[in-house]
């Protein structure tokens, strides 16, 4: 799944701020952490502010602070501030008006459903655990589960249902 640049910046900023909701960070600090444009990030932070996820603190030492509940706010909540997740297929492909379009729509909808279910089940706290995991030295990391080819299970009877 690909997300727009603004969405990615928003997720990066939210990860940084939600990691310690008491801490305030200047947009320049967040931007330098990820090597991104301060201007672009500022626009993103304003949208996050309007949504009530971050608050801007003015004055000397001002910056941004996370304002939501990181156990409740999900990746989907953040992403949907910037782009829809699951548009049901490509635009302008005559969906709904032809059998081909409707068939494609069903397939795309299945993919969208899974994407939404995944993103809506990952809270910021859970996402930050993944970030921590990525920061650990490789041997300590939980190995990602890889798809296994059932045919590779030599010497076993394979029960399929």
């Amino acid at each position, binding site marked *: 799944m690909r997300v727009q640049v603004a969405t990615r910046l928003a997720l990066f900023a939210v990860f940084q701020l939600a990691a310690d909701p008491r801490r305030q960070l200047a947009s320049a600090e967040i931007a330098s952490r990820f090597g991104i444009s301060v201007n672009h990030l500022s626009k993103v932070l304003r949208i996050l502010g309007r949504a009530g996820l971050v608050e801007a603190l003015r004055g000397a030492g001002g910056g941004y602070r996370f304002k939501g509940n990181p156990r409740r706010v999900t990746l989907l909540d953040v992403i949907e501030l910037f782009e829809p997740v699951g548009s049901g297929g490509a635009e302008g492909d005559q969906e709904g008006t032809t059998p081909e379009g409707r068939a494609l729509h069903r397939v795309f909808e299945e993919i969208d459903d899974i994407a939404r279910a995944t993103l809506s089940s990952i809270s910021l706290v859970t996402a930050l655990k993944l970030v921590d995991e990525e920061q650990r030295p490789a041997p300590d990391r939980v190995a990602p*589960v890889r798809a296994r080819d059932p045919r590779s*299970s030599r010497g076993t009877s394979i029960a399929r249902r």
Partner: protein
Amino acid sequence: MAMSHQKATSTAPDHGDVRIRAASLSDLAAVVEVDAADTGIAKPAYWKSRFEWYVGRRPDRFFLVAERQQEMLGFIVGEVRAWEFGSPPSGWIFAIGVSPEARLHGLGTMLFDAICVRFRKAGVSEVRTMLAKDDRLIMSFFRSLGMMAGPFIQLEKRLEP
């Protein structure tokens, strides 16, 4: 088998004097009650059959309960399955439930950790479950424990009459 849709929430564990032990037949009524509080349907015959299958019968089947001062607060059920769909032995969790009054104290996490210890002792290194994809709460719970999508995907088809 469907996951019992408990309202589990991951929180910082507050174990107090809770202890986890293997279920016995005397827990049947309490399990039925916890499940009914969650699903809205009392299923005594179903749970009796699950007790017969899981309680004290085999070393690779686990029916655990959490109790405090002889009061049963929650349960988790799972087993080691092998070579279904070509998968080497792995731990499967098919039901978890926590009494509504006992939620938000990390009991679900405690039950999950306890069954994982038993799975490890049984020689498996992966644990799986299956969830309704629109059940955000239970999905968030399992994700907060580090579970992610695995190498299998569930497919189904409506059978024509």
